[in-house]
C-alpha cells in the first residue's frame, strides 16, 4: 500500500469524532471556528493512525472547513501558517531537527549529518526512499538546556551526538520501536550532567 498517496476521500472516524466533539464544545455556540486548530490536529493524527503518515491532505482541510462553517481558504490560511501541520505526506518517523544557535553550538551539525547518513536523505524537507523518514529543519524547540534536540514524531530525544543519533535511527530503521524519550545520556529532566549538585538535603516537605 502506498501510504503517501493523496486520499480520495476523508471523514473523521469514530475515535476522531469523539475528540472533535470535545474540541468544538470548548467554544461558545457561533464561535465554533475557534476549534479549527484542534480539528486540524485531530485530522492529522487520524491520518497518522490510518495511513501511517501524519499529514493534512486538502480534503481533510475541506472537511474541517465544512464542519466549522468556514470558507475553505480560511482553513488553508491556518494550516499553511503553522509548521506543525504537514501539508505533504511525511515518513513514518518525522525527524524534526533543531539547528538554532544553542543546539548548533552543542553539535546539531553532527546530528544532521548522522540523520543524512542513516536515512539517505540529502536535505531538509525530503523523505527517504523507503518512506520511513522525513527530515525537517525546525526553529528552537524550547529545550536548549539539553541541546542538541531531535524531535521524532511527538517526542524529544535530547543530549544527542552523532554516534547516539546513528544508533537511535538504526534501531528505528531495522524495525525497532521508539525508545523512551528524553535525554540519551541518562540525564534526569534538565538537571546538570552527572546528577544534582545543589539542594541535596531533603526538606521537611519531602524531596
Amino acid at each position, binding site marked *: 500500500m502506498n501510504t503517501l498517496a493523496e486520499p480520495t476521500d476523508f471523514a473523521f472516524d469514530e475515535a476522531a469524532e469523539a475528540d472533535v466533539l470535545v474540541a468544538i464544545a470548548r467554544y461558545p455556540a457561533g464561535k465554533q471556528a475557534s476549534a479549527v486548530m484542534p480539528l486540524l490536529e485531530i485530522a492529522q493524527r487520524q491520518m497518522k493512525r490510518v495511513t501511517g503518515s501524519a499529514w493534512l491532505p*486538502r480534503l481533510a482541510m475541506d472537511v474541517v472547513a465544512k464542519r466549522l462553517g468556514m*470558507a*475553505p*481558504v*480560511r482553513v*488553508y*490560511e491556518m494550516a*499553511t*501558517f503553522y509548521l506543525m501541520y504537514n501539508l505533504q505526506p511525511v515518513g513514518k518517523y518525522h525527524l524534526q531537527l533543531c539547528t538554532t544557535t544553542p543546539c548548533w553550538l552543542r553539535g546539531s551539525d553532527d546530528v544532521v549529518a548522522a540523520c543524512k547518513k542513516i536515512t539517505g536523505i540529502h536535505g531538509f524537507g525530503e523523505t527517504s526512499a523507503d518512506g520511513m523518514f522525513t527530515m525537517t529543519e525546525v526553529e528552537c524547540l524550547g529545550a536548549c538546556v539539553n541541546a542538541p534536540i531531535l524531535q521524532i514524531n511527538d517526542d524529544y530525544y535530547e543530549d544527542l551526538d552523532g554516534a547516539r543519533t546513528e544508533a537511535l535511527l538504526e534501531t528505528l530503521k531495522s524495525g525497532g520501536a521508539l525508545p523512551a524519550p528524553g535525554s540519551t545520556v541518562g540525564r534526569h529532566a534538565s538537571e546538570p550532567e552527572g546528577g544534582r549538585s545543589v539542594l541535596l538535603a531533603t526538606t521537611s516537605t519531602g524531596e
Partner: protein
Amino acid sequence: MAKLTIDGIEVEVPNGSTVIQAAEAAGVEIPRFCYHERLSVAGNCRMCLVEIEKMPPKPVASCGMPVSEGMVVHTDSEMVRRGRRGVMEFLLINHPLDCPICDQGGECDLQDEAVGYGRDHSRYDENKRAVGNKDWGPIVKTVMTRCIHCTRCIRFSAEIAGVPELGAVYRGESMEVGTYVDKPLSSELSGNLIDLCPVGALTAKPYAFTARTWELRKTDSIDVLDALGANIRVDARGAEVLRILPRRNDEVNEEWLGDKSRFSVDGLKRRRLDKPWIRKSGKLQPASWEEAFAAIADRLKGMPGERIGAIAGDLCDAESMLALKDMMSALGSANIDCRQDGAALDASRREFYLFNTTIAGIEEADALLIIGANPRRESPVLNARIRKRWVAGGFPVALIGEHADLTYDFEHIGNGPAALQSLADGSHGFAEALKSAKNPMIIIGQGALARPDGAAMLAAAWALAVQFGMLNADWHGFNVLHTAASRVAALDLGFVPGAGGKDIAAMLGGGVDALWLLGADEFDTAKIGAETFVIYQGHHGDAGASRADVILPGAAYTEKPGTYTNMEGRVQQGFMAVSPPGDAREDWRILRAISAYIGHALPYDNFVELRARLAQVNPVFAAVEQVRRLAGTDASGPVAQGAPGDAALVSAVQNYYQTDPISRASPTMAACVAAHYTVVAEAAE
C-alpha cells in the same frame, strides 16, 4: 461628535471615526495602501502614519486610530515623513523595479507615493523574493512578485463579493496571497480587485500591455449590460474603446462594476454592423444608405399602419426609442413593444415596474423576499448591496424560485408559485418575519414575469406587498428587478402596444407585414412570420440581423450620447466616447433620416430638440440624476389575469456572462463562460 485639529484645520467628525477619515473630512490627504473606506480596517501597510500630540512619542497608523475630543494631529511632521520613508523602503525591498513593463504604471499608488517617500537607491543587498503567478481565470492577471500584502483583495472577496476564496497562505517571508487551490475566482465582481489593488499585482488580463493611462480619452457614460445603470468611465484611444471602469456613485453602484459590464468591451470591436445590408435573393448583400432607405420605403409604401410593427431591444437609449415610437405613430401603427421576453410588465402605473425601494434604499429595509430572481446573476452589483445590508445584520431573506448561491443566507420557501400562497395565508414561518418587519421589501424578477402566468404573478406579488404593509407614505417595498437597461425608459415612454395595437407575441408569426427591430435580439427570431419584412437597426450581427431583410448599422452605447433609466427610475445620461464604425450612425439620426425619406419627417432636427421632446412625452426625463422614492399610498394593484400556475420559477439569466449582442461577441466573456460554466454545461447535456 468629536472635534479635533488636523494640520491646524479644525474638523468635527462622528465618534468612532478614525483619524484617516477625519483627515479626509479636513481635506488632508494621507497616503495609504491597505486602507479602503468600504473595507474593514487591516492596518498592515503602515503607510498612513501620523503624529498625534500628547500620545506616546511614536508615529500612529491613522487608519486604525479612533478619534477623540481635542486630538491634535500632524500629518506632515518630520517624524511622520521619516516614518513613511522607512515604510516605503521596506515595501520596496521585495517590490520589483519593473514599472516600465507594469500595466499599473501611471495609475499606481505605490509609484505615486514612492515619488514622495522613496529613496533614490536601495540599501538592500540581498536577493529579492519572487512569487509564482497564480491563475485566477480570464479576468484577473496576477504578477504576485509585485504584491505588497495589503490584503485589500482578500477583504473585498470576503466582505463585499461574499465569495471568500482568497487568503494569505504560508507566512512571513513566504506569505502569498492566493486561493491555495488553483481555480478561477468565481465572483461576478472580480474585476473590482483590479481597481482595488494599489500596485500592479492584479491587473486586467484582457487589457494587458494595451495602453498607458495617459494615452486614454476618458468619457463618462452609463452601463447598459444590466439594468442597474452603473456609472462608468469609457477609456478610449483613437477610435477604439480600450477599457471600461466604474465611476463612483454611492446611490447606484458605489464604486463597483460587474465583470460583464467591465470586460465585454472587446465585444464592441467584433461582429459589428458597419454598413447597411439588403437581402437579395435570400442573401444579405452590402448596400449604401440610399439603397437601404429605398428598399424600406419601397416595402412600406401603401402598407397599412396596423400591418407594421416595432420591437425595441434591451440596450437602446431612450432617444432612439422615442424616435422609433414617433415614427410608428406617424405611420399609423400602435404595434410597438419593448418587452422582448414577453414579461407581463404593467406600464399603467410607474410603481408597477420600478425598483421602488431604490438601490440605496435596500440599506433601510429589514426583511426581503425574492421571487423568481437570482440577483447575483441578474445584477451582481445590486446583489452586493443586498449582501451589504445582510452583513449589517437583522435582515432575514427568503427566496421563492431556483435555489442558488446568492452570497448571503436565505430561507428557501419553495420553487413554484404555491410558495406565495403559503406566505399569504401565513402558513410559512417567513410570513411572521415579514409581518414584524418595519420596512419589508419584495423583489420580483423577470423570471417570474416572463411566463404565461406573469400577470398573475405580478398581481400576487403586489398583493403580498399590500398584505405585509410594504406600501406606505414613506416606504415602498415593491420592486421589479429588471435585466434590460432600456426597459424602464421604454415603459416610461409608453413603448407598449397602443389602443388596438399588437404586442410582441401577436406581431410574430405573421401578425405584421413589416417589423422594425431596434437592437432586438433577445427573442426567438425564428418565430417571425416567413413573409414578414424585417428591418434590423442595431450594432451587432446577432440573432436579429441574421433574420433581417434590411440592416441599418447603428451605434453601440459607447458611440452615442444617450439617456438611460435604470431599474429604480433614475434618468442618467451617457456621452459619446468614440464614433460608430464605418457607415454606422447614431440611431436617432437614422430614424430621423428614414422618417423624412418615407414622408413622415420627425419634428426634431437635433439632439437638443429630441431631448426636449423626451421631457415632453414624460416629465421624468427632465429630472436627470434624480430619483425620489414613490409613496406607496395607492394600494390598488395591477390587473390580475387568472391565477399563478404551478411551474417552477427560474431566473431570467442563466448565463451571466452572455446576455446581449455585445457580451456574446466578446472573447473575454466566452472565456469566462468556459471557465465558470463548464460544470453546468456538462450537467445539461
